[in-house]
């Protein structure tokens, strides 16, 4: 039978909801583990389990329903203080969470025929319920009956209903209109099945008689199988109490007893007291109300549509720059024509609108990093448990927003870094004690905006890196030669960790140590045009700083000229621009180098690679210092044109991959400029083969340049 629950939209909505609720659940359980049990927290978790149960049973997904049902039972016991939270419970809950995730993932493929086994977990959950609750149960039963008794007595004089402001005003206005507010107490027979459902039915039939404002206990939050027998309904009606009673007895079936009494709005003092008691619960309610409201104001949009919008905006940005440029030319040509002034005005206005549009579309693609950060508490918890380490995780700046695609791409590298920090960085408790450090290690992940970038730092107060060890390992694994290793500076040694195949871990574990991790981290960050920096102090800790662009589609570029060709450099890779006398450029092993701020940087003359003549008779040259991942180098440019928003266009498959160039962009005058791929440029330095072959080709055309080049070398 094809039901609407089998339609892809329903399934999509269901999976989305489950994902969201699981996220809440995870947060909740993590919080539960750390803090004392707080009623509002447990209430929240309980509600999540309840929602999950509801939606999974609506979809006919029995396994998930059963599992959440048992979980709900456990939470219910915790909520009613029948169960103390301990580690075993938390662990079982986490297992449930994982199982739910698997169930969710499996649903797409196998629907209800999932092969994932839940019976074991169900057993465990039941065990918890049985062994722990039995002892407390009896005691509680007594309490409950007692409570029932006291309930019936205190009916008229205390505020037993949880009223929200809207309810209260409703009550007030009803009373003003001459209606009476009555409390209808209904007793459901003890042997009746599905008491919660019955309570709802009673609620509905009473709603026909008058208006039910509230019930105590709140029937909408009752678990299906709760053993509630006495329910109070607060009703606003035109009937008197006697009328209501007879009417209710007539209408309601399968009810043991109906009592009706006047509802006395409690005096201020009691109200306050009740407020304190119920404050927490109310808070949760308010929050829920808010989120409901927000939901209705958002629309789920296919990311492809957003992508397309971004492309269109990109086109507009280009055309806008062109309009402005043409306007300027016309303005120069027809100074007296006021139409041109109009054109300029319109062009200015459009440029404002376009840039605002661009910003808005970009923002629409942004997501807070929080959703990435949410994964870390669990990861850190599991890892530190399995490694027997005690680690405090500090997350800062989760509200920092970034492009969705970048968040996706940065997830893996960050997880790698966190794993590394936990595995190699932070020492075990004993070692830390011996070293005189606080027993608990600290892992801090921080995100913040800096100009057009997002900076993410991962910092631990662990052992730091042993430079000698890295060096030795690099030589052993043939990453560098012994000779080369001798000449490396400290930062260069640290950067060796990004090389493929390098690991300083003595043991390969399932967590890390295979020597591929940092290599992957670097590749990912390269791909995003990001920069990674490492600071480490032996014995004190390590800090990774990742600098990422806000978005990928449109970037700010620096336009430069090499000979008379215009090129764009992604601003995010530019560290600084310096002007240096040509005489300060030196050459080592045929590689030009320059010292900038006490740092030796390799220098690329792209002129040589492109077969263009170097500018002669110039005392100073502009050097743009670039950084990609951990590499730093400079390129020589002839002229700086300025910075501009550029839209990346692919060169197409006919041209294919061109070394050092990532794409092209269209400039304000309609001409095309190539965009340098900084990673590709950095590879040019090491790639001697390419260099030589190009030199041979370039030799004929730029012989004079080479001559001059060798002369300067001799001069030095």
């Amino acid at each position, binding site marked *: 039978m094809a039901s609407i629950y089998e339609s892809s939209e329903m399934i999509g909505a269901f999976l989305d909801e489950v994902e969201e609720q699981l996220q809440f659940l995870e947060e909740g359980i993590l919080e539960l583990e750390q803090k004392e049990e707080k009623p509002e927290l447990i209430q929240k978790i309980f509600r999540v389990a309840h929602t999950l149960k509801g939606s999974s049973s609506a979809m006919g997904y029995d396994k998930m329903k059963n599992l959440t049902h048992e979980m709900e039972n456990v939470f219910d016991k915790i909520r009613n203080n029948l169960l103390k939270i301990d580690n075993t419970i938390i662990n079982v809950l986490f297992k449930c969470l994982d199982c739910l995730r698997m169930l969710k993932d499996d649903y797409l493929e196998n629907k209800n025929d999932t092969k994932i086994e839940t019976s074991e977990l169900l057993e465990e959950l039941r065990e918890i319920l049985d062994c722990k609750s039995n002892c407390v149960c009896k005691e509680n039963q007594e309490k409950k009956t007692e409570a029932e008794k006291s309930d019936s007595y205190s009916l008229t004089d205390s505020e037993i209903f949880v009223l929200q402001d809207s309810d209260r005003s409703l009550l007030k206005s009803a009373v003003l209109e001459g209606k009476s507010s009555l409390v209808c107490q209904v007793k459901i027979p003890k042997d009746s099945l599905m008491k919660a459902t019955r309570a709802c039915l009673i609620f509905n039939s009473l709603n026909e008689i008058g208006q039910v404002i509230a019930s105590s206990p709140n029937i909408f939050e009752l678990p299906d199988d709760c053993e509630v027998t006495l329910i109070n309904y607060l009703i606003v009606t035109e009937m008197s109490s006697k009328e209501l009673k007879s009417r209710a007895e007539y209408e309601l079936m399968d009810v043991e007893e109906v009592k009706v009494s006047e509802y006395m709005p409690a005096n201020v003092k009691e109200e306050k007291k009740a407020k304190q008691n119920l404050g927490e619960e109310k808070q949760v309610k308010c929050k829920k109300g808010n989120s409901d409201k927000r939901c209705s104001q958002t629309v789920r949009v296919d990311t492809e549509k957003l992508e397309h919008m971004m492309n269109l905006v990109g*086109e507009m940005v*280009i*055309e806008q720059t062109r309009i402005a440029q043409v306007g300027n030319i016309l303005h120069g040509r027809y100074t007296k024509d006021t139409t041109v002034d109009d054109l300029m005005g319109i062009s200015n206005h459009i440029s404002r609108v376009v840039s605002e549009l661009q910003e808005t579309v970009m923002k629409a693609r942004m997501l807070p990093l929080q959703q990435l950060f949410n994964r870390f508490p669990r990861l850190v918890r599991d890892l530190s448990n399995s490694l027997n380490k005690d680690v405090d995780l500090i997350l800062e700046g989760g509200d920092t927003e970034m492009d969705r695609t970048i968040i996706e791409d940065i997830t893996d590298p960050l997880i790698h870094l966190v794993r590394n920090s936990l595995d190699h960085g932070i020492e075990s408790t004993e070692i830390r004690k011996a070293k005189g450090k606080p027993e608990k290690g600290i892992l801090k992940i921080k995100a913040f905006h800096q100009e057009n970038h997002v900076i993410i730092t991962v910092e631990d107060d662990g052992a730091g890196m042993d430079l000698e060890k890295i060096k030795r390992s690099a030589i052993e694994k043939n990453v560098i030669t012994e000779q080369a290793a001798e000449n490396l500076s400290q930062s260069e040694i640290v950067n060796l960790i990004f090389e493929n195949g390098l690991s300083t871990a003595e043991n390969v574990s399932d967590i890390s140590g295979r020597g591929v991790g940092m290599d992957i981290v670097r590749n990912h960050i390269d791909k995003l045009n990001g920069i990674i920096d490492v600071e480490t102090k032996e014995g004190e800790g390590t800090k990774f700083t990742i600098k990422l662009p806000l978005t990928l589609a449109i970037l700010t570029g620096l336009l430069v000229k090499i000979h008379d*060709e*215009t090129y764009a450099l992604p601003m995010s890779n530019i560290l600084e621009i310096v002007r240096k006398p040509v005489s300060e450029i030196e050459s080592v092993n045929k590689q030009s180098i320059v010292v900038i701020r006490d740092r030796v940087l390799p220098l690329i003359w792209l002129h040589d*690679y*492109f*077969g263009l003549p170097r500018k002669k008779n110039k005392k100073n040259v502009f050097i743009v210092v670039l950084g990609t991942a951990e590499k730093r180098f400079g390129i020589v440019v002839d002229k700086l044109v300025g910075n501009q928003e550029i839209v990346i*266009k*692919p*060169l*197409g*498959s*006919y*041209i*294919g991959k*061109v*070394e050092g*160039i990532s794409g*092209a962009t*269209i400039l304000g005058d*309609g*001409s*095309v*400029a*190539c965009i340098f791929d900084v990673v590709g440029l950095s590879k040019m330095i090491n790639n001697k083969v390419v260099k030589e072959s190009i030199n041979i080709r370039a030799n004929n055309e730029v012989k004079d340049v080479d001559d001059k080049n060798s002369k300067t070398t001799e001069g030095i």
Partner: protein
Amino acid sequence: MNDLLDIQFIAYELANEKYALKISDVFEIIRMQQITPVHSNKLFLEGVINLRGKVIPVVNLHKRFGLPNYTNTKATRIIVVKSRDEMIGIIVDKVSQVIKFDDIQPPPEMVAGIDGEYFEGLGITQDGVVSLLKIEMVLYE
């Protein structure tokens, strides 16, 4: 060979030699514009141009066939062809006309110093012989 007789061709000139392309291969013909060089290892790739917001590559057929390089005159055009779902511009010295051929001969081994493999055949007109290029082969091999 006979089905080629029904098709219209665009005749153009490279270094005073007459060539033609199937009209269905041609996307549009534009005037010469500023070409941004791309320094790749494809030697006959002249660079890229902006065709209404799209970046498309431009190929120098003179270099491709080892002819004396073109000089930019008023008659110089870029023929934009569509090949393998991609637009590629080729520089020609002059675009003359749209023609149909009465007779098409299979290509000899060499045509004007170029390997015969690159040609569909030779079109015969009253004014002389026109070489019909296999554009895909020229671009990709």
